[in-house]
């Protein structure tokens, strides 16, 4: 049933396919949609990687990885390049994903128009008739209030010049990466929606001519590995205002440190906290 919904979603990129979401051994909001999609696509030959905000070692990522180790008897990995299925919450890995890989997103609110138009009947009609003026009203409000488009995550995109889609709350820094060689599947368990992007689908972030889309990130290098092109987390290190910026993608950061890169406070991975 979920596999059929996935096929339909892949056939109509960006369209939200309703599906009968099942009870999962975890509460809504912890990735029930992602888990169902992962369970539907995993085969015994797959190698699974699970990340939460880019990190392999957070509670949720560890739990879901163990869950599938036990129930699906699949191998797991932390290395992006080795994985065939990657379940993610709120990030796209820094390492480029390629043909043969599947990226599964956990989605809290699949409807990009939801906060502007609360009626489901109306938002469906708006998708049906391509009435997307309202999405730009939100961006207009951002500029009117903050001077720039202040939306920094869950930044709306238009898929193949047809459906407006919520890319799940990934930072807008990741939006340009959505045009990729891997298959992208989105599962929203509580909202009972699945949508998908086949490889190399055209994904365009919405913007204004005079306020173009800007995939911003913190203006620092990673304190551990020195990377200047990766998305960074700001970590408060003491109660005197001390802070450091580190890669949100832990696998990417570890691999760079293993290869000898060092940031301002960097140590080899073996000694690092991760």
């Amino acid at each position, binding site marked *: 049933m979920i596999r059929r919904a996935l096929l339909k979603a892949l056939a109509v990129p960006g369209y939200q396919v309703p599906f009968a979401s099942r009870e999962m051994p975890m509460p809504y909001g912890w990735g029930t949609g992602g888990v169902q999609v992962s369970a539907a696509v995993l085969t015994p030959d797959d190698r699974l990687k699970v990340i939460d905000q880019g990190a392999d070692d957070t509670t949720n990522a560890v739990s879901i990885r163990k869950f599938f180790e036990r129930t699906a008897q699949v191998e797991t990995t932390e290395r992006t390049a080795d994985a065939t299925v990657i379940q993610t919450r709120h990030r796209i890995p820094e390492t480029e994903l390629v043909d043969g890989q599947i990226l599964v997103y956990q989605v809290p609110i699949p409807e990009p128009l939801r906060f502007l138009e609360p009626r489901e009947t109306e938002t469906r009609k708006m998708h049906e*008739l391509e009435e997307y*003026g309202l999405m730009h009203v939100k961006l*207009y*409000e951002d*500029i009117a*209030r903050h001077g720039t488009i202040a939306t920094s995550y869950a930044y709306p995109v238009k898929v193949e010049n047809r459906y407006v889609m919520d890319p799940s709350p990934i930072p807008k820094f990741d939006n340009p990466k959505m045009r990729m060689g891997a298959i992208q599947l989105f599962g929203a368990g509580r909202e009972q929606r699945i949508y998908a992007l086949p490889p190399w689908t055209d994904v365009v972030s919405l913007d204004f001519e*005079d306020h173009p889309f800007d995939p911003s990130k913190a203006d620092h290098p990673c304190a551990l590995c020195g990377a200047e092109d990766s998305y960074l987390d700001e970590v408060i290190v003491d109660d005197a205002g001390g802070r450091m910026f580190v890669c949100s993608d832990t696998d990417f950061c570890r691999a760079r440190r293993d290869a000898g890169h060092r940031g301002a406070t960097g140590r080899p991975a073996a000694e690092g906290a991760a």
Partner: protein
Amino acid sequence: MKPLLSVRDVTKRYGARIGCADVSFDLYPGEVMGIVGESGSGKSTLLNCLAGHLAPDAGLVRFDTRDGGMRDTITMSEPERRMLARTDWAFVHQNARDGLRMSVSAGGNVGERLMAVGARNYGTIRASAEDWLGRVEIDTTRIDDRPSAFSGGMQQRLQIARNLVTAPRLVFMDEPTGGLDVSVQARLLDLLRGLVRDMGLSAIVVTHDLAVVRLLAHRLIVMKDGHAVEAGLTDQVLDDPQHAYTQLLVSSVLQV
């Protein structure tokens, strides 16, 4: 002259009850038609049938579209009808809250229709929002305020600006001055009269206020129990009412 809107025998029933029955009229470009009658006489039902919010059970509503000539708006496809509703048509609700997005700034409210028809330049959208706020006499420094911070009269004027920004050719108004105090009403009517004349708008105004139609409308339809009982030039109908109900209506107006 070709009519802009041609209405023939429009009937809408609610089960066994009649909403409106066998209403016919033509509206010509630049003309304002008033529809008056007491509560429950079918004025709003008729207006909603004409504006595509309700599907009439029988009758024809034909509109002179920009590119396709006279088209029946009841049988045209929904995308086409909704396209008309945000370009050539405008609908001013009695309650401004029904016609505005209360959580979006005044500028965003005015700009929405522009963005809906494809405007993608923030500077231009903002400039026309400012222009329209000025035209409806709202201080342009309030462009980023939400309508919830506006008075009732300002909300109503904002709703009008939001509707007229795409230069529609036909405006539907449902009690545009209802619930406003008399001095605010007078200013609003003044504004509407100016806009109708300057933009050459055609309008259909539903109201129970005879003073409003006297000022705004060229022609008048009087409705009673779902039927149009009298129609004619506004002054003629109000000064020399023929139908018993119209006579009652005209004589019921309080003299100050």
